[in-house]
């Protein structure tokens, strides 16, 4: 179980102190699939970075399985069973897809096992396994490889930051299957930051974050209609910019 207790995060800029996350309290139970949504700039990605340890809270505590991980490094949290899929995956010169998947799995897996992970995200493994994770890959390819590394890690908790961004529709349908499998078959906890209706639809819970606060928390079947019908939560979404528009499946 992941628990955030009164977590705040501030940054200093030229105009003074800015509060990005404001005293958030949150519990995510084991084997839960939670979607986080809300307008751009509302603090969603920052919250994900606080959970995986890329940022440290200004105040408050983060507990994972009852253990205080607030001061733990990214590495320690990763070893405890937290995975993180970047919104914009990182490129490397000289590191191959095969290497990255092997590092993710944490053991010296065979090429054929590495290929299995790539196949799950709809990549023809033979074409990709020996390619460098560099600028020769498109944004969509890179994104799918990123998700394959999370599948390879197979940890208790996986945090995805906008996994749908840059992925084409065909792949998107497969992506949904990937999340469902992680959740239902493998019984793992998932946190997904997303604006996509289909992702919100398969989540157990939806959390709406806006202006650094949790505006709404509830079961998917309760929160989603409010978002789609423009009641309550949807008004929050509209406060953002064009980019945070809610995408229905037809779009």
């Amino acid at each position: 179980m992941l628990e955030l207790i009164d977590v705040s995060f501030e940054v200093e800029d030229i105009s003074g102190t800015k509060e990005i996350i404001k005293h958030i309290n949150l519990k995510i139970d084991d084997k839960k699939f939670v979607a986080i949504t809300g307008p751009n700039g509302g603090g969603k990605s920052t919250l994900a970075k606080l959970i995986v340890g890329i940022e440290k809270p200004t105040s408050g505590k983060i507990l994972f399985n009852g253990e205080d991980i607030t001061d733990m490094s990214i590495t320690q949290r990763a070893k405890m069973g937290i995975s993180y899929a970047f919104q914009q995956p990182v490129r490397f010169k000289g590191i191959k897809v095969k290497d990255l998947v092997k590092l993710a799995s944490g053991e010296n897996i065979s090429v054929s096992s590495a290929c299995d992970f790539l196949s799950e995200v709809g990549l023809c493994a033979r074409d990709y396994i020996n390619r460098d994770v560099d600028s020769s890959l498109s944004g969509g390819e890179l994104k799918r490889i990123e998700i394959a590394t999370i599948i390879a890690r197979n940890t208790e908790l996986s945090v995805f930051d906008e996994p749908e961004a840059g992925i084409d529709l065909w792949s998107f349908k497969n992506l949904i299957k990937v999340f469902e499998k992680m959740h239902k078959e493998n019984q793992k906890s998932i946190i997904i930051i997303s604006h996509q209706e289909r992702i919100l639809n398969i989540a157990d819970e939806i959390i709406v974050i806006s202006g650094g606060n949790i505006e709404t928390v509830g079961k998917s079947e309760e929160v989603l209609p409010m978002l789609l019908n423009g009641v309550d939560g949807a008004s929050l979404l509209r406060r953002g910019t064009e980019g945070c528009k809610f995408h229905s499946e037809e779009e």
Partner: protein
Amino acid sequence: MDEIQKTLLEQIAGLHEVPSGAYNIRANGGMAARNTTANIDIVTKEDKSGIDIMIKPGTKHESVHIPVVLSQSGLKEMVYNDFYVGDDCDVVIVAGCGIHNGGDEASKHDGIHRFFVGKNSKVKYVEKHYGSGDGKGERMMNPTTEIELGENSYMELETVQIRGIDSTDRMTKGKLMKGAKLVINEKLMTHGNQYAKTAFEIDLDGEGSSTNVVSRSVAKDNSKQIFLAKINGNNKCAGHSECDAIIMDNAKISAIREINANCVDAELIHEAAIGKIAGEQIIKLMTLGLTEEEAEAQIVNGFLR
């Protein structure tokens, strides 16, 4: 050869035993072993230290190994090796030098390799440099490579210096005839207080000649690296040079590039980038469970692969 020399040989030439094909192994300033074949002859120079390697026209799929190992502290040598590659050949040449210095005196190997490649030939030349030993004596290597490529010939040069050489001053010169192509891939890593200077000067003299010079390097600790690449486009030709470097700790790197177009149809490009390891690369690998140090090592190893 003793165990130290055998280890050096494995590091620089990947040799566990006597190679197949032609070879000349030089150890502590003298010839340790030699083999010639019907197509490849190796002759000791009479006027100075070194060998002539003669490859007959039409020789295909053969290799020559000419590694040099030094394990005697304080030994300083200057070697001249000339390669004469006939027309229509397809050969692999593996050179390289390993120095083990367990003493306090400087050990030094300076080598001048000259290549005279005929028409329509293909040559792959691999050169690795490696140093070991915990003596205070410096391990120094100053290789000069001069290449003349005949019409429509292709040569690929792969040079690697990853560990243990305290001081190096490398010069590579190329002169290309019509339709010839020279590809150079250099990998370099310096650490401690090491110093490495590497210079390239390529003359694209023939019509349709081309070159691609790619250097990747990592400078750690207090080491210092200087790159100089000069491409002269003297005809309708294409030249590209690229220096990509990772800087760490208190290291210093300079990249000095020069391209000279002496013909309106010369197309020359140079690129140079120096920077530290991107923080997000380290973070990504840490999210996979690697420590910061392990992440750095992975990134550096991949970069120099």
